[in-house]
């Protein structure tokens, strides 16, 4: 059941354009995604993304292409690379610290 839904999702190219452009920043607007924006820049990128998806390029390839052209600033979802390792691991480090705190506290209290 899950599988059929997934296949269905991949077939629909407009959905894929939407998913990808929602995660891209319109460089000429104020903090708006390319999908939401009607600026000229955004419409151009939407076309590029659509054509590239039709040509069979993967999302990763398209993102890479856009980053080379416009810089990482265009990505709303920061890359998981060396520079951003702290950004992505931070919440989970905190979560582990929190868990430790609870465990230590409750250990001392066992009746």
């Amino acid at each position, binding site marked *: 059941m899950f599988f059929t839904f997934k296949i269905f999702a991949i077939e629909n190219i407009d959905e894929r354009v939407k998913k990808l452009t929602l995660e891209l*920043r319109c460089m000429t607007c104020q903090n708006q995604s390319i999908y939401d924006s009607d600026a000229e820049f955004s419409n151009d990128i939407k076309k590029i993304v659509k054509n590239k998806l039709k040509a069979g390029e993967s999302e990763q390839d398209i993102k890479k292409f856009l980053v080379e052209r416009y810089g990482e600033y265009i*990505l709303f*979802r*920061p890359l998981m690379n060396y520079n951003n390792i702290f950004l992505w691991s931070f919440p989970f480090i905190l979560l582990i610290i929190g868990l430790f705190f609870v465990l230590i506290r409750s250990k001392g209290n066992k009746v």
Partner: protein
Amino acid sequence: MSSLVGFLSLVFAIGINFYLFLSRYIFKFKKQKFNLFIRLSSLLTLLSFFSLMYAYVVSDFSNYNVFQNSHSNKPLIYKISGTWGNHEGSMLLWLSILSIFSFFFSFTKNIDESFQRLTLIIQSLLHILFGLFIVFTSNPFLVNSILVNEGLGLNPILQDPGLAVHPPILYAGYVGYSIVFSIAIAGLFQNTDDEWLYVAKKWSLISWTFLTGGIALGSYWAYYELGWGGWWFWDPVENISLMPWIAGLALVHSLMMVRGEQAIKKWIVFLSILCFSLSVFGTFLVRSGILTSVHSFAADASRGIFILLIFFIVTGFGFLVFLLKEPKKSNALNLLFINKVSALVINNILMIIATLTILLGTIYPIIIEVLYNKRISVGGPYFNSTVIPIMIPGFLLMSVAPILSWQTNKINNSKKYVLAFIVLSVLVLIQSYFLDFNTWGFVGLLLGFWIILASIIAIFSSYKIKINIKFFKIINPHVAHIGVGIAIIGITCSSIFQNELDFNLNEGDKFIVNGKTVLFEKIETTNEINFQSLRGKFLFDIEKNRSKEIEAGKNYYPVSKMITSEAGILHQWNKDIYFILGDQKNNEWFVKVLINPFVSFIWLGVIIMMYSGLIAVSRR
């Protein structure tokens, strides 16, 4: 003239606070006189604020600030709201609200006299700090050096009734935490009994309720004024208001479990300082212009440095006192496997992780830019995939937390809850197969319905149902959580099951939205007092007699040469139909229609949360 009155009263108010601070260590005031001076300084600050407002209302362009930010042919309400629609005025509003809080705090009864005085002295220090900031870097009472009879106008995007009242309410939330901060610091210095915790609880609930209202108004404004169909964009300015909100929520919850436990007291003081620090930090970031934002109306960065300085003074002072004077004798917490205390501790930990993650995500682009001279964005996708998963255990827990016992490990009627959860999961699963299955949609709906259902079961099986005020106070925590559940359903549906339809239309065309025929009647342009409007008129559901008219379009503001979009929204209880008029190409108009299911649930949920915030103020 009004500018002179305003400036003088501002300076006098600061002077009084200086005097109070000095006199505490030189003279010994009687209480009556001390409070009298506090109230006098509050009234003077308000006088200063209202004289600025007066200058705006009468369009006194000899005031440089009015000249820069107002225009004589604006409707009266926007002349009034123009007072805080700019940096200087909004800082004065900040200070005025600070002194209003001091004013009301000076009337608090049932509180140790010297404790109250110490709290007010700390308020005075804050007043001096921010007052000097206004006088030296952001004086709204400067005289215009040239003689003019027209002003430059207010940013048209701010000319909206929602946004006119949004800043005062949001600021009331931010600044309300100043009192909580002062109480906590005073509590550290005096550290006598626990009475101050109840006072702190009251004020932090008030601030939190205001902050909730302010944030909700802001996002409702974004919903209908930006015309993008969404209401939350993980925009830096939104994140900044969310941080003290979550920290404040953690504070309110930990104040529930004050039972003389020192470890918690320490934590409460920490949260109180954190909340106010985040509020000041928020003001700094919004006003400094460092962040790019949809809500950006910031001025130059040199003032930002001053606010940053104030931020470091306040935070540094707060945490320094915290470290030097921390409450003694830390009793160990009674963390049995499942009891109320451990539920609240887990909730607090999760909320703090969420706050810190939002904080890091918001300032990370700045850090990277400073370190590597590279611009990156941290946007919605980051927050969605970090903050939301972290909050999920909290959402699961909150449904039953209020009925957990303080001491033991037992949940009454636990079988009922397990059964309800299983039935609910199956129902939501079946339901989501009929729509497109979506993992987040499934999780969100399940959580929302689970919180509501479990709270209702808890109310009916734990208390005797009576219709009186006392009963509503007892079930208040459940009511608040039902509000959260309703909001989660609204958030999930409107963001995940949003439907979009695009049309290219001529006037007179008919098209189908949601099974109903819509007529694109005509395009109309009109000239209003301060803008030109372009409206597409639509008739929704023309086959019925009770067809509804919807207008969507754009406004052009000639004074500031800006175009704003005005979405046309048809509100129904279970969905909003959201019309956006695009551009005209080849004689056809581009029309985008969004169907946002259950958006109204978000606002309903928020209203319920605010209601129970207010109820909780009156409950000890």
